């Protein structure tokens, strides 16, 4: 299988879907040149200015217009630039897009994809580093995925674009230049299918996006001590593949949940509940969690480092779960 980086895998997914379906178009700020992360680079050459739209700095209009287009026959893929700026289009996402099919009694489709580059890194600071996926799993009507590998990124984005409902794809900006094998053939990853990224019998680590990689690193280190970690990547949070999560937990009886965002009210808390609900009697120890502290993301490297969960934190959490 060819090696591609995460960003190029997303670019490939966009090309494939835009070739397949002339209704698909991309919209965002500075996406013609592929800013800010290169994902849309070169699309303009193949698909032209009618299908690769540089919008003014008007997040509400970008996202709102995408809904208007989606409910009348197009298939928009919105580049949110940084997920942090979804705050500027929150009504459009939470009250309009999420609720359109339901409130209208199923009269319309709203096939819309929001690409959400997110996450900590390179001293982006408080307005360019946030993990906000937890807000959206709390909004019924949205599907949410969060890939960790190039193959998953391509497969999930393709599925998202084809879905007749709105899907948010959280792309950790620290992963764009991470490479991985991507199948030659067109491959879709269904929503609601978790993936066991590493098998192991001692403890289950449920991790998302960048934390999958940190968890795999932690697993390698722990393997040297004979501790076998199973790393499960939900890949989509809505819908959620509870079966795969539960099967792993039943096997290991010990659980760590690892995410990057702040600890309080996060997706990790939700996943902890899901595990507890499905596997209370199987748990031999309290679930351990890895997440950021409840502060905004600071600028200075040592501060930023302090709030960034890493493999070290996963190792510590695994030890705690094994106590």
């Amino acid at each position: 299988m060819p090696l591609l980086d995460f960003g190029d895998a997303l670019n490939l997914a966009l090309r494939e879907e835009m070739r397949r379906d002339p209704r698909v178009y991309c919209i965002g700020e500075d996406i013609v040149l592929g800013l800010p992360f290169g994902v849309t680079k070169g699309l303009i050459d193949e698909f032209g200015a009618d299908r690769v739209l540089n919008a003014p700095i008007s997040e509400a209009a970008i996202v709102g217009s995408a809904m208007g287009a989606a409910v009348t026959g197009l298939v928009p893929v919105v580049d949110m630039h940084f997920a942090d700026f979804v705050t500027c289009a929150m009504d459009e996402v939470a009250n309009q897009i999420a609720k359109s099919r339901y409130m209208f009694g199923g009269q319309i489709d709203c096939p819309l994809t929001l690409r959400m580059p997110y996450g900590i890194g390179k001293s982006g600071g408080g307005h360019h580093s946030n993990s906000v996926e937890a807000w959206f799993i709390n909004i019924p009507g949205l599907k949410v995925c969060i890939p960790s590998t190039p193959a998953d990124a391509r497969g999930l984005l393709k599925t998202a674009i084809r879905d007749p409902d709105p899907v948010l794809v959280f792309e950790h900006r620290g992963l764009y230049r991470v490479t991985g094998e991507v199948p030659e053939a067109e491959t879709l990853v269904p929503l609601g299918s978790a993936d066991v990224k590493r098998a192991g019998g001692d403890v289950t680590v449920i991790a998302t996006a960048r934390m999958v990689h940190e968890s795999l690193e932690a697993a390698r280190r722990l393997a040297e001590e004979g501790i076998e970690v199973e790393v499960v990547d939900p890949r989509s949070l809505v819908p959620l593949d509870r079966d795969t999560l539960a099967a792993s937990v039943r096997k290991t009886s010990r659980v760590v949940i690892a995410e990057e965002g702040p600890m309080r009210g996060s997706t990790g808390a939700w996943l902890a509940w899901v595990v507890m609900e499905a596997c209370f009697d199987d748990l031999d120890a309290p679930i351990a969690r890895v997440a950021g502290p409840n502060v905004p993301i600071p600028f200075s490297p040592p501060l930023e480092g302090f709030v960034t969960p890493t493999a070290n934190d996963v190792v510590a959490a695994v030890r705690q779960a094994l106590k």
Partner: protein
Amino acid sequence: MPPGPDQLLQMYAGMLRVRLVEERVRELFANGRIPGFLHTSVGQEAVAVGVCAALRPDDYVLSTHRGHGHLVAKGGALRGLMAELYGKANGVCHGKGGTMHLADASVGYLGANGVLAAGCVLAPGVGLSIKHRKSGQVVVTFFGDGAANRGPFHEGVNLAALWTLPVVFVCENNRWASSTAHALSTAGGSIAARAAGYGIPGESLDGNDVLAVWEATARAVERARRGDGPSLIEAHTIRWVGHFEGDGQAYRGKAEVEEGRRTDPIARLARGLEERGLLDAAHAALIREGVVAEIEDAVAHAEASPLPAPHDALTDLFAYYPWRD
């Protein structure tokens, strides 16, 4: 081309239909037949009808919290509307939407909206889709004078103007945003005047004159279909009733409602038609009878319709049901 006799009579009947629907709905609400937070458009009929009369059936409308009139004017079936207002299973949204979140995609009515000015940013996307599909359609987005102060107005108008999209922005200026007077919410006083800043036509007009509304809309629609982009229309009108049903209206005196009744858009058109010999008392009575019959049919239908089963609250979330979560 000015509207012909048929079209004029249709506008007359259209306004009457909106008026009588709204009055009937108010009555039903007062009698506890209709639930929810109800905003009716009694007095403002000329805007809904004048605008929609200038549209093709396949054109789109984005509406507001005060949206029954827009739906009726756009040709939405009264049965579906009334059953929806009742919260019945065969309402146009199966009871999930209700008064503030009505939609009837079959007539291009893409939704009332509980969030003010939300349509202003949806509209450019509809316009984009029209342009992409080369369908020659047009989209109208309605919003109130109060709503015009929200950010989406600015973002939506700018985007539509920038990309010369086939959008008509129609502000229904009824002088009030709930209890807040227009002058206390809008710097500069004129919403139409804001169009100039985006390089598009902006027109302020008497929204109680259905012909003036029709004319301005026809111009804006023609421009949009030609591919010359959006227009902004500010239609001045008067809401005869409370902001919502139950509104004590402590914020305004009776004079305004009296002014409204004096300038009643329906009576005004009727006078014009009578002068031109297009309408007489007998004909008017016939039209009224027809409208009343249609409304009573819709009410009877709604009354007789079943409520949704409680667990139907779980359907319509996603395209596939049962969904996984």
